[in-house]
């Protein structure tokens, strides 16, 4: 067996996965920092050259981001306003160097509670496409795919092939807020992505709110989303119960109670910013 595999066809990649468990690698931005000193994996499978993996395509139902689409690809892509939060998050992933290498599927599969890409994708109702030789393809909502800290619903013979986003309603706007203790290259203390649709009277018709770094897995806030319907963006009142899905911890970046305060503030700011654009 070849030790560094670079398949160009999905079928070849899935065949490899059926037979062995190579270290899957794309941008390397999470694989290398997590690699302990000592013996390395016997084999690596590089997924960046698989056909279609680096493409953003329009489908009947929406947009499909190939698994190895990088954050820089997303920044450069011509996307509707509903994707502004995703683009803003893409610019906050590490640094330019990291954005050039890091991929959308890598960010998801790494399953960090502070993954910058996850809240905007949750707010877009993104789904994860998976493929295996044995069972073909399946699609899992992103919120179900990430099951815990560094845990995802991915079987050993499966590969993430794409992240698909159903077409957002016409006129939906969005914004992303990130807070760190410094400007660049910073792990978020909290972050929030909002996707908002206003009605003709300037009242919220639909709201998708996702908060990251405040729970093991980034969370949508369904109760808040329901309560926001019919309100004006300038009149939002966030109550404790709205933040119930969040369970932030105390760590070196900030206290749990601070994170709740900050998330509430970020939600207001993200909604204001989204509707301004």
């Amino acid at each position, binding site marked *: 067996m*070849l*030790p*560094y*595999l*670079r*398949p*160009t*066809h999905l079928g*070849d990649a899935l065949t490899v996965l059926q037979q062995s468990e190579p*270290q899957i*690698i794309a*941008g*390397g*931005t999470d694989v*290398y*920092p997590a690699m*302990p*000193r*000592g*013996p*390395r*994996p*016997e*084999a*690596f499978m*590089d997924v*960046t050259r698989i056909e279609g993996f680096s493409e953003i395509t329009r489908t009947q139902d929406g947009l499909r981001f190939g698994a190895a689409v990088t954050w*820089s690809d997303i920044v450069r892509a011509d996307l509707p306003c509903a994707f502004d939060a995703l683009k803003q998050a893409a*610019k906050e992933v*590490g*640094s*330019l*160097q*990291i954005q*050039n*290498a890091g991929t959308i599927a890598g960010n998801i599969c790494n399953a960090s509670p502070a993954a910058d890409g996850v809240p905007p994708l949750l707010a877009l109702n993104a789904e994860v496409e998976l493929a295996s030789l044995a069972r073909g393809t399946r699609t899992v909502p992103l919120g179900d795919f990430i099951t815990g800290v560094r845990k995802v619903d991915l079987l050993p013979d499966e590969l993430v092939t794409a992240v698909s986003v159903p077409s957002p309603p016409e006129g939906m706007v969005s914004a992303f807020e990130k*807070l760190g*203790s*410094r*400007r*660049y*290259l*910073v*792990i978020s*203390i909290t972050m929030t992505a909002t996707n908002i649709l206003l009605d003709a009277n300037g009242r919220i018709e639909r709201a998708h709110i996702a908060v990251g770094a405040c729970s093991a897995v980034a969370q949508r806030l369904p109760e808040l989303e329901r309560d926001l319907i019919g309100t004006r963006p300038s009149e939002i009142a966030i109550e404790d119960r709205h933040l119930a899905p969040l369970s932030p911890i105390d760590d*070196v*970046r*900030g*206290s749990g109670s*601070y*994170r709740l*305060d*900050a998330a509430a*503030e*970020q939600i207001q700011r993200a909604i204001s910013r989204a509707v301004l654009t």
Partner: protein
Amino acid sequence: MKKPIEPTATRFRLNGQEAAAIAVPGQRLSEMLREGLGQRDVKIGCDAGDCGACTVLVEGKPFCACLTPAHQVAGLSVETLAGLRDQDPAAQALAQSFLDHGAAQCGICTPGMMVSAVALLRDVPEPNEAQVKDALGGVLCRCTGYRKIIDAVLGAPAVARDAVGSVGDAIRHLDGEAKLSGALQYADDVAPVGCLEILLIRSPYPRASFTFGNLENYAAENGLEGILTAEDVAGENTFGVIPGFEDQPVFAENEARFRGEAVAAVIGTPEVIARIAPEDFPVSWTELPAAQDIETAQGKTAAQLHDGRVNNVMCGGFVKCGDPEDALARAHVIVEGRFQSGFVEHAYIEPEAGFAQMVGDRVEVHACTQAPVMDLEGLERVLGLDRSRIRVVPTAVGGGFGSKLDMSVQPYLALGAIKTGKPVRICFTRIESMQCSTKRHPSDITLRIGADAKGKICGFDFRGSFDTGAYASWGPTVANRVPVHASGPYQVTDYVAQSKGIHTNNPPAGAFRGFGVPQSAIAQESLFDDLSELLGMDALDFRILNALENGVPTVCGQVFDQGVGIKACFDALRAEWKTERAKAEQLNAENTKVKRGVGVAGGWYGCGNTSLPNPATIKSGVRADGTLVLHQGAMDIGQGANTVITQIFATALGVSVDQIELVGADTDVTPDAGKTSASRQTFVSGNAARLSGTALREAVLRHMNVSPDARLAFAAGAIHATDDSGTHGLDLGALTPDADGFVLAASETYDPPTKPLDENGQGHPYAQFGYAAHLAVVEVDMTLGAITPIKFVAAHDVGQAINPMLVEGQVHGGIAQGLGMALMEEFIPGRTENLHDYLIPTIGDIPPIETIIIEEADAHGPFGAKGLGEHVLIPTAPALLNAIKQATGVRMTQVPAIPSRMLEAIQNETNACKKT
């Protein structure tokens, strides 16, 4: 798969040429470039994408080579700094701009900065500042404070100018070119490819006893060249930097006292070492209760870390003058507070590294260091070898800031070379570096200060405890320096200051830019603001009223009749103090969510050792062929000693700097200029260089019998001197060379005049102090607690700026470190041992800095010059904290003021106000 890649060879274009290298599966591109292809202009700072030093262009786009699988570049184009510098006109122009701004200090981040900037300039030939920051946000720099780099990329008008390089000339760094081309060799760049490697086995616990299993079997099974433990240490298994405090073992014996302490080392080929998992090493650990803070370490149940240091008190310091108790009793107003700070990591981008080999029966150590002769003495002790059998050759140093004053890799390299008889190398990973290197001392300070009705200080009582970690390192220096400096540059007639260093099971705390004074300044300068507020006085006026002056005794009873420049520093801030506060008031009236504040703070710092001998020797000479040589042994760690010492020497000798050939530190050939520490190189080694230049000039004048003001020119085989009587020639070939090959030579030593401190700390601790005052403007986000510095104005009394561009460089870099300490940096053993959990400022965090150079000449300084390096960050943190107080009404007493702490303090204040 259509065409499987050949598993062993990766072919690509490297800097425009076809290249092929063998890469093991999953090998990092950085490793393949550096070790497989000798491309050592690619620097490795973290191996985790956190520092960007390894940035290369792949297909024209910047990538971290440390995160890029080597195989991924097959068939692609890769460009590194060296290639860009050779081939790309834009890169060449940018390199010139870096030199013109002094944008490369130590130079270790320069490849990452340059490569990232070239990528930007190809896309956007005339970028704005925001674009520059976005493009360089992924590259960390610990020296420059980034502003010079921004100016260089923006193509701002040059700061440096073409000049002969006399004292006062803002010439370019004399050693800058090699930093911009990537040719300069740092500590991990000197070892030959394939050289044996050393890997240290470290304690995973803050305190643990341990026993080894069968080491011979392990070595044999793994194909190791050897294993080192305490048994291999032929001399004393202890080292340290302060006589009487050599307490740190090369390898721990029986018990490890901090997480990351070395207990053994394995030596093998790179292939063998790459497969070693440290957790498989045959050592069994028994974790023991550890004391990881000052309070626990002084508790009744705490284990004693060192015999004879009762209650884990390493040592203390004490200064007293007048009657502080009586003064506080009669004071009109009194303020008091408790201030705390945590460990601060030096975070130089170059991890500790080096190379050693046997040459005959001598061991030669090449490593990054701030103190080559101290390393030699340390090695003499641990190796049990006469110093004649040891040579220390410093490499270029990719940042030091105090931590590279201590030995780190040196003993392991020497022991490894001796054990195997072969060349060996070592490079700490970023995590290892952060676990085991020395840190800034955490502090716990209580301070009471009184003032009389007129606003004059009336009583000052300072008590500070400092966590000195498991070993002494420079802890005694911190304990001594703090009481001498804790008054700040003010007239305090009734004063007491006590300090003590406490051992804990933490990494050793040692020297870090300011030796404890930045911590004490936070307490003193914060309370000065609180005092002035209570008195209803302007904070700047209050400081000026109390500022030290010529003829006024310091708290040590030392009276300077000249050279005290603190008032001039404060005066220089007055105009901006007024306009910035007016601007802040206006903004605050219009805005409730963001509040702006302006703060000031002062600082002083004694240059050189505290009341101890502190000599520097500088040798110069002329060879028969007319070459003028300066043995410049003052380690340049980015601060610019190579340039500054040469300018001083050139001025004294009466030549231009371009006539001088520099020979650097090397214990075989260059005399000891003393350590790069205590802001002493410009002052102390500068004086030795002045004396050496003067003596060499006198020797030339004597030989030529020309007048004292004759102009000298060094030519092939001759010196020409021109005076009123015409031009005279000296045929150097007619003179007899000495053992060094010099026909004329001058070796001169300078030792600053100090006097010992008595039991009350009274005496003459330093021959000179330097002075500083900073103004900081910040904005605080009142609902998120995020603090954004907007601007700094920094006034520094440097006596005489030897090179104004380099002065600005020190000011910017010091402010960046002070800002980091105030707002984001806190090292927590076991939790922030990398550069993504431990945050230092990025290019987006440093606002514009206006530098005001004050030149209150010092009688002892060379041409009047004073030291500067450490002075800078002393006022920065308190100026920021005072600005935060102005903005929010909240006094932060614990740093770093991360958003979480800031908001909590704002909320507490709000709640307190509601209750009252």
